[in-house]
């Protein structure tokens, strides 16, 4: 396979430009270009399926080579990036139609492709400069995508870009520190430097790089940008952000934990708890806290996309938790969950986007009863939530199960408990989502709602199928993951197409049995059900209300504050808000800065001249008296 990586990287960028130019010709030229180029990228990417390793030098900068490389792990992430991008673009064609300013739309598609390209660049990067460069490009291009979403999205985007920049600069410091030691930023060289440097240095590097990835992966306490950004972004962009973009953080963590810092190194330079190096253990705890707290927050949301955004924080917590276990099973679970989360979270965001497209609101308590009007979207959403809640036989279950088993093997029971709790909490918020949108009473203003156009349905179909397939045949993904992990020095894990055989300390899993037995018992139960007299369909207003007659004017629906009583239980936790703490410090810094700036730049000439006098005096005095300037 002689596909060049540069071409793969360049395709979306070139495609983006051509799409923009195409938009000047006609909007359909633009749409077709956008779809075609993302399809092309996906096609090019798929050619690397069997490539175990390939590296290209594509330039050099400041004496460090710039490298593009691919291996099965990068292939996995490439799969996430390219496929979700393609689906998002297809979905956008109809969803973004309402935007009248065609320039905005042209640049929207261009930025979509640019973000895709940047993420491909991140994944393909074989050295830290390339990585960092595309990381930054991804940050600002995705920023422009977020702010497409209207007035509120501007604040969200602003918060996002500022936090991204902070995170990126933390990485920047680390990269520069590595560069000063190695004068080369190619991954193997970096790994060498880290293994030869003092532990303090290495730990600092890991922490600084980690901060950058934590911001992007939205691990608590650096998550505050995510709920706003993901919920305020346009509907097709949210899946890209939640499904794919935060995975880049996970990918970065994988690279530093296992690419740059070999397993032995971590163990050598720091003490271990539960046979996990202490730094990774802290990461695990942060991830576990993300899982639990974000779950709690998601339960309390009233806004569909915000709910999903918090859920993303929680789910990325699983990914990071799995990645940080350090065992084959855990890391494989984390990687697999990254893929699965990309699939089902994109599906959920698209489904919610479809609802927003038709109803124009994402406020959960304004919706309800749409199952009769948008049956397909309902199915998509239900499949998504079942996967998200980690219920067999869909894909979210398998990866979560792997993470649980890995934690149990390591006896990290407290983390395991938190992971379980987050998963059960997921039942609450996913049910809230499906109930408030599709079940319950159909509001009168949504009487004429139809299901979404076919172009918006196709991406959801694809994702539904993917959810089922990866759920029942986890071996398909494990092929890639295990092959890739072998390159990073992990012991292979036993698996087969349908699941996992029983190991010495781990239980067995065969999803196809679960699925088929469920299917059979479902059919049996259904046939049994059909034996009895037929049901008569009644309207939603023919409903038990203790004899009261339900009329369309009467809102006979329970939706607002769905878990209010649960909210009372967890209220004490939310007295502390991380965001409020940040805001407090930012405000304090602003007031401080403003105050002192006004004192320095007074606008008064005498003051200014006195500065000159002071400087000269000090300099002269230093020279004359000290004989030394410092």
């Amino acid at each position, binding site marked *: 396979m002689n596909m060049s990586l540069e071409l793969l990287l360049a395709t979306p960028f070139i495609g983006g430009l051509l799409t923009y130019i195409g938009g000047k010709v006609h909007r359909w030229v633009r749409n077709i270009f956008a779809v075609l180029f993302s399809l092309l990228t996906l096609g090019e990417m798929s050619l690397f399926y069997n490539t175990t390793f390939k590296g290209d030098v594509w330039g050099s900068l400041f004496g460090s080579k710039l490298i593009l490389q691919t291996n099965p792990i990068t292939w996995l992430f490439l799969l996430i990036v390219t496929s979700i991008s393609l689906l998002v673009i297809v979905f956008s064609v109809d969803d973004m139609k309402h935007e009248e300013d065609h320039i905005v739309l042209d640049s929207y598609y261009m930025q979509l492709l640019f973000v895709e390209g940047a993420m491909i660049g991140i994944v393909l990067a074989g050295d830290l400069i390339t990585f960092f460069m595309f990381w930054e490009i991804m940050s600002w291009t995705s920023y422009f995508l977020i702010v497409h979403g209207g007035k509120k999205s501007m604040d969200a985007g602003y918060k996002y870009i500022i936090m991204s920049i902070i995170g990126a600069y933390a990485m920047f410091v680390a990269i520069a520190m590595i560069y000063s030691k190695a004068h080369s930023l190619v991954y193997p060289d970096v790994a060498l430097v880290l293994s030869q440097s003092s532990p303090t240095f290495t730990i600092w590097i890991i922490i600084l790089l980690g901060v950058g990835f934590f911001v992007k992966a939205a691990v608590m306490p650096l998550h505050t940008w995510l709920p706003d950004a993901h919920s305020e972004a346009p509907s097709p962009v949210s899946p890209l952000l939640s499904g794919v973009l935060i995975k880049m953080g996970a990918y970065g963590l994988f690279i530093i934990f296992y690419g740059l810092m070999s397993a032995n190194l971590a163990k050598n330079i720091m003490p271990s708890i539960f046979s996990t190096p202490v730094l990774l253990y802290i990461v695990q705890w942060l991830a576990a806290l993300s899982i639990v707290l974000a779950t709690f927050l998601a339960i309390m949301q009233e806004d569909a996309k915000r709910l999903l955004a918090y859920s993303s924080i929680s789910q990325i917590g699983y990914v990071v938790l799995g990645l940080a276990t350090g065992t084959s099973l855990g890391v494989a679970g984390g990687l697999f969950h990254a893929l699965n989360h990309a699939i089902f979270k994109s599906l959920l965001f698209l489904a919610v986007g479809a609802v927003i497209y038709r109803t124009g609101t994402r406020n959960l308590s304004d919706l309800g009863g749409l199952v009769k009007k948008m049956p397909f979207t309902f199915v998509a959403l239900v499949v998504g939530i079942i996967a998200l809640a980690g219920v067999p036989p869909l894909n979210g279950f398998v990866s979560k199960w792997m993470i649980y088993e890995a934690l149990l093997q390591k006896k990290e029971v407290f983390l395991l408990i938190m992971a379980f709790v987050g998963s059960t909490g997921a039942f609450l918020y996913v049910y809230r989502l499906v109930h408030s949108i599709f079940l319950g009473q159909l509001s009168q203003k949504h009487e004429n709602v139809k299901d979404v156009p076919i172009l918006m349905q196709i991406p959801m179909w694809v994702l539904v199928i993917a959810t089922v397939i990866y759920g029942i045949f986890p071996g398909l993904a494990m092929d890639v993951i295990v092959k890739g992990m072998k390159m990073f020095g992990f012991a292979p894990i036993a698996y087969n197409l349908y699941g996992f055989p029983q190991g010495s300390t781990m239980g067995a899993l065969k999803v196809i049995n679960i699925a088929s037995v469920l299917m059979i018992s479902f059919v049996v139960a259904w046939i049994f059900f059909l034996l009895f007299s037929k049901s008569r369909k009644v309207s939603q207003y*023919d*409903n*038990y209300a*203790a*004899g*009261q*007659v339900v009329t369309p004017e009467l809102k006979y629906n329970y939706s607002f504050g769905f878990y209010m009583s649960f909210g009372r239980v967890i209220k004490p936790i939310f007295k502390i808000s991380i965001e409020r703490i940040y805001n407090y410090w930012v405000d304090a810094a602003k007031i401080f800065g403003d105050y002192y700036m006004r004192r320095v730049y007074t606008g008064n000439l005498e003051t200014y001249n006195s500065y000159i006098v002071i400087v000269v005096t000090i300099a002269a005095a230093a020279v004359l008296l000290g004989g030394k300037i410092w």
Partner: protein
Amino acid sequence: MERMTEEQVKTIANMLRKRSLWMIHYCTGCGAMELPPTMTSRYDMERFGLAPYVTSRQADILLITGYLNVKTLRRVITVYEQMLDPKYVIGFGSCALNGGVYWDSYAVIKQLDRYIPADLYIAGCMPRPEAIISAFRHLMELIDSGKADGYKRYKRNLAYYKENQRKVLG
């Protein structure tokens, strides 16, 4: 297994129905006061498979315990129509029978079966638990013999009932 005739099925069904009667009671009047002793340990109507249930969908018997007025009739009709066939109505106490002490009130419905078909009335102001249980036993017999067909009558004479309801409710 040989095919059972429809008649046999009906017989078995009626046998099951009479052994498991779930009631929803519509209580405004004082008549409901005698229900608790009927349910609790003194008389224990669960012996006969009778149990109070909450919603109209689950119940088989609509127990109208007390006077009905124009305002509450609408609710009673709604509840009755929401119940699933087969369903039975028992007028409980003299208020349901003929208005009772409120016989001359402008707002009280004097004759229940002009609006919904009652299968059975229990006389008395208010009926004793023994009378209640006796009534249920009687209803069971009616069910067994297929004579408790109020719901069929309602369907058959829907126009009649609707007309009467409309007159009162407007």
